[in-house]
């Protein structure tokens, strides 16, 4: 779940960047980060890329992540593709993506098969009932952390946009595409106008 919290802007001293990774090294590195990444891969990706392999500075990593954060779709998948392509073009993008998704995909398929077969067993039922309560709690914590900056800034427009999306999707259960096709342009225009006014 931490994959949705943007990484804190760490002002680490600039460390010398090591030589660019090979295609195989990209695959291996992303496979390792992905399999270590319980509850979200971002923290591990950051540690692997910036601290362990020194393929990017902390600042470059934050910039790359920011690009991926406002593209649609799974952020960390986007990050693997953007990162891989920066070093080794299409082959690098595919290698990083395959490393990120391949191994956990196999694991997940095994879990899915086990669940399809044993999902009704009482022990598993109880375990999953407990875990899903905890998982919701973790999600609430992530949302609260993301909400803090909006509250601190007293960003009324942002808070209203957030609330509107919550009501439309969570309570009214409207289709995602419809809601976003309305909400994104409105939010863009208002943000643009406010910034221009402030400037």
């Amino acid at each position, binding site marked *: 779940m931490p994959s949705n919290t943007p990484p804190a802007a760490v002002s680490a001293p600039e460390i010398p960047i090591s030589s660019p990774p090979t295609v195989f090294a990209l695959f291996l590195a992303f496979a390792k980060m992905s399999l270590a990444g319980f509850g979200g891969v971002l923290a591990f990706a950051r540690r692997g890329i910036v601290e362990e392999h020194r393929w990017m500075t902390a600042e470059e990593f934050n910039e790359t992540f920011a690009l991926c954060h406002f593209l649609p779709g799974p952020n960390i*998948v986007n990050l693997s593709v953007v990162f891989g392509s920066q070093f080794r073009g299409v082959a690098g993008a595919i290698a990083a993506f395959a490393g990120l998704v391949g191994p956990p995909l196999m694991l997940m398929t095994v879990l899915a098969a086990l669940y399809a077969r044993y999902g009704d067993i009482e022990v598993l039922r109880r375990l999953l009932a*407990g875990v899903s309560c*905890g998982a919701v709690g973790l*999600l609430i914590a992530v949302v609260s952390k993301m909400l803090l900056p909006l509250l601190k800034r007293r960003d009324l427009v942002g808070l209203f946009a957030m609330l509107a999306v919550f009501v439309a999707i969570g309570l009214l259960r409207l289709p995602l595409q419809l809601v976003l096709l309305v909400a994104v342009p409105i939010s*863009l225009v208002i943000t643009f106008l406010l910034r221009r006014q402030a400037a």
Partner: protein
Amino acid sequence: MNGESNPIRSLVVTFGLMSLFAVGGANAAIPEMHRVAVDIHHWMTDREFADIYALSQLSPGPNVLIVTLIGYQVAGLAGALVATLAMCVPTATLAYYVSGFLARSRQAHWPALVQAALVPLSIGLMAASAFVVAQAADRTWIAVLATLAAAILAFATRLNPLWILLATGVLGLAGLI
């Protein structure tokens, strides 16, 4: 599974489209996945959806792999593969092309503007996710309390989230939730 003429095709269409609209990542797309899988196609029950969410959080790898579990439930191994690729490939392709373009406009103001406009929307989507899964998972008062305790622990401490999941799992095993 429910007499759908071609489940593979509806997986491709569903997740391929969702891929391009999931602003804020996989956790923001949970309500839409729930709407499609439980309410529209009846691929699974509310309870099964909560189970699958729990499983996806328990295993390593990107959160988006919850679609692997949904795909498997719909059409077995082929479904798992197809759902995963449909959810990842469109947006990954977009990311590949857009990143080259954005790398050249890093100094421009509009990426920051777009992000400022989108962040509140993705928080709203994730709050809706929590609400949707909570409706399925928190059926008793004790379950609600466990969720609140997990939320407070994860918010206020730097505890590894996996421990929190395991702790609530043990409470569940003990029959308390």
